[in-house]
């Protein structure tokens, strides 16, 4: 499971059966300093997040388990909406920064 920020959305009308109606979001994974970590990816969203939100997402087989239909071709799903990530030295990664 990783920390990330939603940077945009992806709209796809033609979908594989089972993932119709699940929103797709662009996610930029973040490291513990809140800095971008690796490439952006497209993730399914089951918590109703939107661009700008701090989230956590799961990848691999577990991503499909979080979807309404569990046997679907999905490799990343946003599973939580993060209010705040507190660093040991007092820094905060929040919704706005």
């Amino acid at each position, binding site marked *: 499971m*990783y*920390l990330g920020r939603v940077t945009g959305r992806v709209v796809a009308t033609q979908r594989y059966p089972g993932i119709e109606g699940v929103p797709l979001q662009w996610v930029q994974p973040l490291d513990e300093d809140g800095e971008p970590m690796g490439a952006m990816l497209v993730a399914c969203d089951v918590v109703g997040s939107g661009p700008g939100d701090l989230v956590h997402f799961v990848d691999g087989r577990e991503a499909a*388990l979080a979807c309404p239909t569990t046997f679907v071709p999905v490799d990343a799903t946003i599973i939580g909406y993060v209010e705040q*990530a507190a660093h*040991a030295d007092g820094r905060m990664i929040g919704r706005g920064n």
Partner: protein
Amino acid sequence: MFIADVVGTVVAPVQIPVLFGQKLLLLRPLTPRGKRTGKTRIGIDRAQAGVGDRVLVIDEGNSARSVLGDPKGAVKTVVIGVIDYVEGQGELWYDHRRPTGDKR
């Protein structure tokens, strides 16, 4: 499994039901000698770990689901132990038993 430093906590008010009530930790994966490696992860704490601890982490779904007791849970990363010390090649690479500030 790998070892990691707990560098922070994560608060998520809205999340999938399997995560309700679970403590989430920000984890920095480490090499056996304690150098930073790989991608920062968020893990579920099942070992009463806290910020500053060096911990043992599994990043695999089947194990995570069995730890949480939910066969359909979308979970993957779980903290399953707090490390006392790491030994390799006859040396002590990390020792939690040392006084604070003297950890390697």
